[in-house]
């Protein structure tokens, strides 16, 4: 018997192609799972950033995983119906980012300010004595920072509303 819970559990093993410690479920980009029949599943996703070039690849990874557990009819669709924002990362997701050496995005209250971006917490030594070098990084979802205490550059997963 296929249940929604079983599908969610299966999807926990599908990781972000660029951050192998972080699952798509913990990233908060799987927005809907529907069991439509005995072996018929519909999954809805939403991109972290509109221009994210990995989204097609991630759709395929989700479909592959469902195939692996024996689902025959699979539809994976990306929509903006439930737009992503960085507060959608789960607690476990935030931990996974840190483990990967990325500063997790600070929780926002619906607005991103320069103050929120400065002084992010260094993922290596937990110091707040840091500065933002640039709001852009190696992927659309990261910014670049420098820690004045441990003297290391680091990246932060950007807060987005």
């Amino acid at each position, binding site marked *: 018997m296929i249940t929604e819970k079983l599908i969610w559990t299966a999807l926990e093993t599908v990781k972000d192609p660029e951050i192998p410690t972080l699952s798509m479920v913990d990233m908060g980009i799987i927005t809907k799972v529907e069991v439509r029949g005995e072996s018929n599943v519909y999954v809805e996703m939403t991109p972290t*950033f*509109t*221009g994210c070039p990995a989204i097609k690849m991630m759709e395929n990874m989700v479909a592959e995983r469902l195939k692996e557990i024996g689902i025959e009819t699979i539809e994976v669709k990306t929509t903006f119906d439930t*737009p*992503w*924002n960085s507060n959608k990362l789960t607690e476990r997701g935030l931990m996974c980012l840190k483990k990967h050496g990325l500063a997790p995005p600070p929780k926002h209250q619906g607005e991103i300010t320069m103050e929120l971006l400065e002084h992010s917490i260094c993922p290596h030594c937990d110091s707040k004595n840091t500065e933002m*070098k*640039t709001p852009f990084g190696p992927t*659309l979802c990261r910014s670049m920072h420098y820690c004045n205490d441990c003297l290391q550059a680091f990246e932060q997963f950007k807060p987005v509303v």
Partner: protein
Amino acid sequence: MEHIKELLYKMADDLLVLGHRNSEWTGLGPLLEEDIAFSSMAQDKIGHSQALFQILHELGEPEPDTNAFMREAKLFHNAQFLELQNDDYDFSTIRHFLFDHADQLRFDNLANSSFEPLAKVARKIKGELKYHVFHADIWLNKLGNGNEESHARMQTELNNAWNYALGMFEKGDYEQQLITENIFEGEVSLQSKWLAVITPIIEKANLKIPSEKDWEPVLGGRKGYHTEHLDQLVTEMGEVFRIEPGAEW
């Protein structure tokens, strides 16, 4: 639907064309961080244009890649401002500042559009644009208040860009219908909000907006009248796609 298509086309083309111009800084930025910033903004802009082309496709227009890469320059609806060559980093930064504030305000407004497919995309995009605007404000301030040379160069390029920037607010044929149906607030309203937002930032950067008696918006882009720079851009941008339309790269 013609009124909605007109709105979507002009926005999608602005973003595609500026996205392409931004991407021309890849590998050539004055600092590594700026190289990355303009490359990232290029990716965002082109992603935003793709989302709008996708809505157009759902309204019966060609699929996004074909629409972006197979049209001739005279079928583009972008403002001429965006097709101008990058020139130096000074002009690119001024254009980035003037366009991105307008873009942010446009998407802020469209987040409440009565046309739900556009409102949904706008609600997502407006959050991403915060970073573009932060970046523009930082550099305007840094260079405007930098040394004599940087200040003079920024003022010169602000003067050069100004009338082109006003051309971003050229009205379309369906302006009133868009306003009446609560799809979009209209260019006049957008322009006045834009002026209110950018004026104090420009002043803080120790720069001056050209005197109002010299304002002469460069119009025509929305109607398909362009400079020779767009021909060159469109040819280059679609070069690979046109080798074999429909191929999976």
